């Protein structure tokens, strides 16, 4: 039953009591870590939503000066997409390895390659972001009081911090690779990493398309809403 469905129960009635006595004490049929990750992602969503709203709020003012577009970001976006794809590959493979013991050795090879590729591409994304900051910092007439530039540093910085945290989790997952006995634990770790990676990719795509691709899509969106 849904969370809000449960709120309609009348715990003081004996008929309800008979049902409740058999209740196992969990609200969702999900591992605890998965639920915790989802709640955390909700918190992170609020964080980035607020940043986008703050960006938009500043953008509607007349003196808005857009930041110079960085072509490198396209490459970084591609790295992040590849990283997510690789992790998805590892996730599918670890699922297969668990369900079919015969193919296990081969599938575990895929898991290893997938995980490694995800880490390499993820790190490449982070490295690319650092280069992007350096590029922006070294343009002529660099002006930190320009809000577009300040927002770029702030938002990409926070995104990179989340990515960095993801890489720590990735490292802990990779350390479990050789623990063959505990495959279901490894599968859970990879699944959690995958959800987190896809989420950060989604956040990045929204940020990139709306704010940093140089096309002023947020301005168009605001114009459609009649705000700008």
């Amino acid at each position, binding site marked *: 039953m849904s969370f809000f469905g449960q*709120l309609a129960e009348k715990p003081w009635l004996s008929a309800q009591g008979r049902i409740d006595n058999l209740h196992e004490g969990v609200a969702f049929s999900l591992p605890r870590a998965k*639920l915790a990750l989802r709640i955390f992602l909700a918190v992170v969503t609020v964080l980035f939503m607020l940043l986008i709203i*703050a960006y938009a709020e500043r953008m509607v003012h007349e003196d808005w000066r857009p930041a110079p577009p960085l072509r490198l970001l396209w490459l970084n976006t591609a790295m992040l997409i590849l990283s997510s794809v690789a992790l998805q590959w590892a996730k599918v493979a670890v699922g297969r390895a668990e369900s079919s013991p015969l193919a296990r050795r081969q599938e575990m090879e895929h898991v290893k390659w997938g995980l490694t590729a995800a880490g390499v591409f993820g790190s490449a994304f982070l490295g690319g972001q650092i280069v992007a900051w350096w590029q922006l910092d070294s343009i002529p007439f660099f002006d930190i*009081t320009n809000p577009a530039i300040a927002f770029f540093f702030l938002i990409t910085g926070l995104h990179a911090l989340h990515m960095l945290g993801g890489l720590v989790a990735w490292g802990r997952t990779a350390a479990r690779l050789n623990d063959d006995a505990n495959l279901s634990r490894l599968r859970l770790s990879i699944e959690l990493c995958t959800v987190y990676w896809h989420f950060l990719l989604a956040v990045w795509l929204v940020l990139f398309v709306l704010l940093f691709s140089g096309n002023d899509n947020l301005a168009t969106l605001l114009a459609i809403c009649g705000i700008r």
Partner: protein
Amino acid sequence: MTDVTPGAIDFVPPAEVKDVELYHPKSWVTKYVFSQDAKVIAIQYSMTAIAIGLIGLVLSWVMRLQLGFPDTFSIIDPSGYYQFITMHGMIMVIYLLTALFLGGFGNYFIPLMVGARDMVFPYVNMLSYWIYLLAVLVLVASFFMPGGPTGAGWTLYPPQAILAGTPGQEWGIVLMLSSLALFIVGFTMGGLNYVVTVLQGRTRGMTLMRMPLTIWGIFMATVLALLAFPALFVGAVMMLFDRLIGTSFFMPSIVEFGEHLQYGGGSPILFQHLFWFFGHPEVYIVALPAFGIVSDLISCHARKNIFGYRMMVWALVAIGALSFVVWAHHMYVSGMNPYFGFFFATTTLIIAIPTAIKVYNWILTLWRGNIHLTLPMLFALAFIVTFVNGGITGLFLGNAVVDVPLSDTMFVVAHFHMVMGVAPIFVIFGAIYHWYPKITGRMLNEPMGKFHFWISFLGAYAIYFPMHYLGFLGVPRRYFELGDTAIYPQSAAALNAFITIVALIVGVAQMVFLYNLVWSYFKGKHAGSNPWRATSLEWQTAETPPGHGNFGKELPVVYRWAYDYSVPGVVEDFIPQNLPPDQIKYSDQKASGAQGAGA
């Protein structure tokens, strides 16, 4: 109430509750210092919160001395005064109330009351406390930095918060913002634990709607905090950027002493929106646990089931949801579109509906109950009265037209102290008197407690009722001194002096409370496992105080909600949540008829 006539509840299969995986400490350090046991973490949280709260209390004395007796204390200069009010506000709201309700009570009671061995992520829980402690230390460090702590007011509004002329502009504001960011990181770790433990860590038979309202209150407050703190985090990080690397998120162009500062083009109002998008839910982050706890105190000490349990839960959820759409009522005087103000005034008044439902339900729970005027009950009653008082002045201030003349006067100070200062603090006291026997195994001393109660209760009214009047006179808040302003009658100064004297007396009464905490720990009366004859699971533990893993070998199985008090036909006037139906002792039918009439 549960239908407890014999045979009404069918046979329940025997419990097969497995011992869940639990971290077992191996040394003194991992048991008491870097502990992963939620109960130890709770006590660490509480001690830290009370310690920093004491600093907040002393700061309030100093600023009251200045307000009551201006030109008397040469050690208090205007800068110091602003620093004291700023630190007092921030400490009390965030580092004391939020940390104590969620980190303290949440950690101690969530696992015990839902029937879990511990929080679901004990290691993260431990980290949460240590990051909180670090946040507190960073905050305290700002007292010792050159320039002292920030004096920007607890709302930290830019641009003045980071401009020269505001005390603590050099280091104070940097440490304050860093401390807030740390607090939020630490809280998020703890908050994830509380929410997941409530949702996924309950024992068998404990449905969501069988949980005590204490847990519901803490749960909703945590959800609120998880979603509201990011706004403060974003605001704090952006302001840190403005202060440290010269961005202009919140800084408009400013001319200072004829010189154009490097800032330009930022929006100070944006910070206000971010701050209050956090700040208003923060009121409910403090209030919702208080609502929950007080419901349980009233039900237990009036020996009666809570009136309208479902409505109480719905009201908590509704208040939580509504608290995110009222924030701009803190900004009526910031120059907003009147339609915007109208919207926020409306939502603010709507939030009074679920709140009023709760108050009525508390009163209806008391109605014809068997009221025991124990210390927890006294504080619960004091809470209801105080909360209604503070809430009603909130309706005044929630209307934009009434707020505009009262804004930034002492009326506002009186209002928010009543509604989110005194009222939740009364619940904290009530809760400590109620649960101290479970936490330590001994009762708190009653005469000392009565003294503490009456001084605190009457004192709070002696302080804040006159302050409303000062607000009506137009006495502004945040002023170092009124000086020779002719518009205020002499009585304003006399009232200020009176308030100061009462505040000092109330402060001393708190020392009696602290002494009682220590004295009773060694010399208090032994409490036994369930001195209040309460139903919820924390009172049914094998050991008092509960041991590592909370419950003995097997987790309890829950058969009913937490409010089966004075059930007609039953010998005892309470039925513990985990008492199997076949072990309930019934009085004979004749007697049960007589009992039932009054229940």
